[in-house]
């Protein structure tokens, strides 16, 4: 695959394939994706459930259970270093220090038997062995303060069950950022929270990103969040990137029918509501990862499907680094999608 980005990218993922070897067959959960993030940039990955977004992020961190999972091919270059070749021991030095990650469920992401303080301080001392307790403690208080936890010194002695969900996510962020990593991977950081808290957490992330020149890999279902936060966006479908480019570009001129479908499910522009969106408006579901074919994987659900779609479409550049993998992409799709959808499903949920 061609690589048009400048080589100064912080993280560069090249043709990554992560497969699971299960009893039911080989699940090609991530099947040849390429993207890169520059320093201080925010890249969003969107897509339905089961598209392989989490597997992508966990592959970068090498946090997948390795007997079923296997990185079949590809390179993950971080600052020029290939993470795929690193052993678990060396990866420990990268995780938390260079790349940090926060997860979807703050409720279960914190260890219930240790205090907040212990856990935040541990994130620091792991990468700074020999730090005096006092210093680790002070740094932890500072980190908690920087993520907006009131009265951080007292909170240090609390156990996770004494905190609310939003507070726990803040603690997770504090833990992730205490070693000032260059890249933060946020895997649906707000999905499990309610709406007002969501907004606060996103605000916080944007704030921190700006302050620390942090690169952010944001994984989400929520296009509203993407529009607000991400400079660039990748749309994933069934283990592949089907469209990528600048966020503004993708929102104004979605090329792939899948992206167009996602856009239709979005609340009308200008409406202030950023609620979690169900993307079920596209009929059908993502196939199971063991069932992926070698044709265009969106074909069974695509209103524009043609003969040609039996072959896998390449990811082609349509100008201004806006790329899409669809044989019909040139047909300047939004209207075409609209007509086709209206024709095929007259009773379907009405769009905006």
């Amino acid at each position, binding site marked *: 695959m061609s690589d048009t980005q400048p080589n100064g990218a912080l993280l560069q993922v090249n043709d990554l394939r992560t497969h699971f070897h299960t009893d039911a067959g080989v699940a090609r959960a991530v099947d040849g994706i390429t993207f890169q993030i520059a320093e201080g940039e925010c890249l969003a990955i969107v897509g339905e459930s089961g598209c392989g977004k989490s597997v992508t992020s966990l592959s970068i*961190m090498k*946090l997948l259970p390795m*007997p079923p999972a296997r990185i079949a091919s590809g390179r993950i270059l971080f600052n020029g270093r290939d993470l795929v070749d690193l052993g*678990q*021991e060396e990866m*420990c*030095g*990268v*995780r*938390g*220090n260079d790349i*940090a*990650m926060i*997860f979807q*469920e703050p409720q*279960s*992401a*914190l*260890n*219930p*038997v*240790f205090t907040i303080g212990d856990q935040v301080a*541990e*994130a620091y001392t*792991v*990468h700074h062995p020999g730090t005096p307790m006092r210093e680790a403690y002070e740094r932890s208080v500072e980190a908690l303060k920087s993520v907006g936890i009131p009265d951080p010194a007292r909170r240090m*002695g*609390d*156990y996770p*069950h*004494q905190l609310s969900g939003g507070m726990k996510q803040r603690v*997770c962020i504090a*833990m*992730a950022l205490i070693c000032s990593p260059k890249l933060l991977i946020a895997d649906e950081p707000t999905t499990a929270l309610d709406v007002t808290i969501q907004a606060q957490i996103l605000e916080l992330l944007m704030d921190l990103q700006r302050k620390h020149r942090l690169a952010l890999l944001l994984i989400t279902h929520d296009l509203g969040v993407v529009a607000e936060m991400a400079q660039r966006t990748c749309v994933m479908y069934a283990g592949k990137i089907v469209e990528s480019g600048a966020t503004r570009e993708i929102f104004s001129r979605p090329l792939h029918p899948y992206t167009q479908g996602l856009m239709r499910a979005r609340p009308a522009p200008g409406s202030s509501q950023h609620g979690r969106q169900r993307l079920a408006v596209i009929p059908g579901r993502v196939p199971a990862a063991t069932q992926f074919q070698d044709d265009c994987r969106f074909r069974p659900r695509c209103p524009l499907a043609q003969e040609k779609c039996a072959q896998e479409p390449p990811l082609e550049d349509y100008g201004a680094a806006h790329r899409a993998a669809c044989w019909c992409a040139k047909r300047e799709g939004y209207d075409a999608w609209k007509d086709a959808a209206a024709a095929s499903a007259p009773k379907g949920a009405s769009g905006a």
Partner: protein
Amino acid sequence: MTTYILKRLLLMPLMVLGITLVSFCVIILAPGTSGKGGGSGDVRSGKLTQQQLEVMQRTFHVGKPIYLRYLYWLGVLQPEATQAELVEARRKLAGVREQEAFLEDRVEDERRYRAYVAHLDRTLLGSRDPASPATPDPDLQKTIEEIEVDARVPLRGMLFLDFGMSVTTTSVSVWQKIKEALPVTLAMNLIVVIVIYLSSLPIGIHSATHQNTFSDKSTTVLLFVLYSLPSFWVSILMIKLMVSLPDYLRLPFQGIFPAGAEEMATLPLLWACTKHLALPVAAQCYGSLALLSRFMRASMLDVIRSDFVRTARAKGCRETTVIYRHALRNSLIPIVTLLGGLLPGLLGGSVIIETIFGIPGMGYLGYNAVLTRDYTVLMALFTASAVLTLLGILVSDILYVLVDPRISFEKGR
């Protein structure tokens, strides 16, 4: 946390009371304590004498209303025979015993025998003519028997650890018997519990962290087999093995003290005791060990898959830190609570183990009490073992709250 433990402690007296109630319900099932006619089967079959039956009936206050019997037995109330009378009876009995011993020593000595009988008469029946010859007096014999019965009725009740006297062994109090047996059983079970936890945790952790490898699978099979083996069978097989081994490899399998323990120095004695304990401890612990290892493995597997372990890895913790710092303590939570559930089985199992290995503990005592129908000892053992288990459960509750901060709803440590 303190409130939680306090609450548990406050509940203890209530639980003990409940235990005594259940014990009492079992007692009134016993033949001979349900009514006047009961227990005659034991007398007829020669297991108990009429006098022993009477001792038991007096101990459990047969013939009184049930609630009074319970309160008497507990020691909350005193039966009408006052304490002073009973104390007097005991004192007298002690005197008789002394003189009996005196008699046995010099049974041929006619003169002294006469003097003894005269003395006995004076002691028991007040002043009599000292010069009168020692004619066998049926009244005297009867009085001695009555005194003996009186003397074996508990003075204070079981709340004061006075369970009365052993029915079948004369002039030994139940408490004395238990006091001798309790430390043995306690020490052995303590060792067993320690061995169980010290070995099942590593086994479980290893199996879980090496899931589906050969060592995991073979361990699982082995543990399963161990769990299904009857302990008395294994004990006997071990004894059989020891019999066939040459002397220098053989472990002792009778009792817990070596012969001539009194003269041995501390270290050799310790070593000898360890050797004596090896077989019974192994026989007692392997079943629970297998069970606990399996639980530990399952619990560890559960925890390893959880989100916070992934978070710990994402922080950059090394695998050993992840397992032993983050996962271990969480996986211990269900294991610690198992301690309470383990104890009744261990104490019950000690009946078999102690019988086979001739260990003078509570189980052995219980076994013999059943054989000789020593009902007072049996009931006391029964109650005491329940209280012991209760203490064990208390300990496991406290350990539980130490391991899992979510139990205490207070803030801070």
